[in-house]
């Protein structure tokens, strides 16, 4: 089996704006045909990294290669990348077709062939017949499609997308997410997406690099990222995670034994151990709301462990119900008890439980992550 070839390589890339260290040693390999996301809060350097790849920013040190070619002296207009800008950057003085054809000026093809290519590109993004419209008469979603067609018509090796969906309303955004995935499969081009929306990254990407303060905190597939966040900060950023204080009892032979008030003593292999935040006091156990199950009175389950709890709050979402639970044995601090959040799918026949009910929580040590 041949490994997919590296399309983009960043080696120890640093970027300074004056004294501000925006990129702090980025090492990254993006494979050909991959849907790759740069995810992080605003100011984490993800857009800077994307613009570095596009050639809009010079790097202070390090190497960027695209398709095995060093990009140091290659200006933006000579790079095999095209970008979908956050504002879409549709030329307001041109029609839709002229916008899409903008990059074809030096294309040796004839006028008719270019026009056919423009029509094809517009059809691909679902804007068939919009060519003659003027650009300012378009809606946000349509502008985005024009921006996509304008970039894809040039058949770049890499398509860069800078928060392309952030300006759209929720429904449109979800629709465009699916369309982008389909489009990427169809054209087979490497997509690099910048987003601050963790859900968007999880939905769309083959792999995700989570960035904080100019560094990549974790680079993984969506499932690994969600199930095994490398640091507590990543865990906090992606989805909801419950945290309980834990005491490490022993660390022998690759197995860590921890005592968790509320859950009892558990043994975890090192593959379930991640890094805590620097300001954390002591170790923490983390788990996702959907990894544990509420078990009604008299019901059975096949999970290895069970914990007694009281329902503190019920939040009904229609398809899901969120329960905030007080685990037995978890100490109250400041008069407030630490609760954990559990989500249950409202399948047919399962009743929503009431506040104050004593209940059992079934779980497996395999779903826990230890942050130390």
């Amino acid at each position, binding site marked *: 089996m041949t490994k997919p070839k590296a399309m983009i390589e960043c080696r120890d890339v640093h970027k300074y704006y004056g004294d501000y260290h925006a990129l702090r040693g980025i090492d990254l390999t993006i494979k050909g045909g991959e849907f790759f996301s740069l995810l992080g809060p605003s100011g984490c350097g993800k857009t800077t990294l994307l613009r570095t790849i*596009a*050639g*809009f920013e010079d790097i202070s040190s390090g190497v960027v290669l695209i398709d095995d070619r060093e990009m140091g002296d290659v*200006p*933006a*207009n*000579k790079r095999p*990348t*095209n*970008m979908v*800008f*956050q*504002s879409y*950057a549709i*030329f*307001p*003085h041109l029609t839709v077709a002229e916008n899409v054809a*903008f*990059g074809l*000026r*030096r294309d040796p093809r004839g006028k008719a062939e270019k026009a056919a290519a423009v029509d094809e590109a517009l059809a691909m993004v679902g804007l068939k017949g919009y060519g003659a419209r*003027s650009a*300012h008469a378009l809606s946000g979603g349509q502008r985005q499609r024009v921006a996509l067609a*304008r*970039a894809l018509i*040039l058949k770049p090796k890499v398509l860069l997308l800078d928060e392309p969906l952030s300006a759209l309303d929720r429904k449109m955004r979800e629709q465009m997410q699916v369309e982008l995935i389909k489009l990427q499969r169809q054209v087979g081009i490497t997509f690099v997406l910048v987003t601050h929306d963790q859900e968007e990254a999880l939905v769309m990407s083959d792999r995700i690099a989570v960035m904080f303060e100019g560094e990549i905190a974790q680079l993984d597939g969506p499932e690994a990222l969600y199930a095994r966040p490398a640091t507590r900060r990543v865990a906090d950023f992606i989805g909801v995670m419950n945290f309980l204080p834990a005491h490490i009892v022993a660390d022998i032979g690759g197995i860590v034994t921890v005592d968790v008030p509320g859950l009892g003593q558990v043994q975890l292999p090192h593959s379930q151990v991640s890094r805590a935040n620097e300001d954390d006091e002591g170790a923490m156990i983390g788990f996702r709301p959907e990894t544990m199950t509420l078990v009604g009175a008299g019901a059975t389950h096949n999970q290895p462990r069970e914990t007694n709890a009281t329902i503190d709050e019920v939040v009904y979402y229609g398809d899901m119900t969120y329960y905030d639970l007080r685990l037995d044995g978890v100490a109250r601090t400041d008069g407030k008890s630490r609760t954990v959040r559990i989500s249950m799918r409202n399948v047919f026949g399962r009743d929503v439980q009431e506040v104050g009910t004593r209940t059992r929580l079934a779980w497996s040590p395999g779903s826990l992550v230890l942050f130390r």
Partner: protein
Amino acid sequence: MARFDAEARAGLSLIAPPFLYALVILAAPLLTILAYSFLTDGYLEIIRDFTWDNYVQVMTDPIVRVVMTRSLIVAMVVTAVTVVLAFPVAYYVSFVVRPERKSLWLFLITIPFWTSYLIRVFLWKVILGYNGVVNSSLTGLGIIDEPLTFILYNVNSIVITLAHAYAPFAILPIFVTLEKIDRSLLEAGRDLGESRAMTFWRVTLPLAMPGVLAAVLIVFIPTIGDYVTPEVIGGGKIPMIANMIQVQMLALDNRPLGSALAVTAMLIVAVISVTFLFLNRRFLKVRQ
């Protein structure tokens, strides 16, 4: 119905002051000039007889044709020089100057307005004169033996003076349209494979055209009727249309002919401006 009338009255009373102002300040003088242009000139008086003679004279007099042509050429050259020189300045202020310095630059650009137009024109005479700053510097440095004569009392000197006087009027509208251009459009141009120069040509310039067109009209329309510069710099020897109107109106006391000249000049300017806008209408449709 009664309520509608009340609303209509309220609306009319609201627009009444500006309407009256426009009527008195703008329309009345124009209509007076228009009326004069159809009257007959008697010696030291105006005879209230309708006539086309003034216009016939304006159309057929070769001197009027020479002066009008000169005015048009001077205004066109001044407009071209001013706008071509203003564009780089506006571009520099918009794209190169740091944002926090931009208002300082705009302030500096308006400094020439601090002195009266007349004084600025006289200063150009001092600079360009036979023994002026330019000539004495160049002779002093031994670059030329005799003072240059092509820079004073001719069309060149009029063009230089007017181009300087109207530079801020051209810089400011161009600057404003350049400021409005979304910078990501320029990055998009580069991203789609165009060099900086081609991005300028295909993106920046078309988007700046409304400002350029505004600058052209703002400079062209007043310069064609400029009176002071040809009078002072040209030494009265190379009159433009405004000087001719002044001579007819005041020196020769031929108000009907002066009015006909003024109306004709106004019509020519209007036709040229409207044609110019019509030819460039595609640039004005852009909404950013």
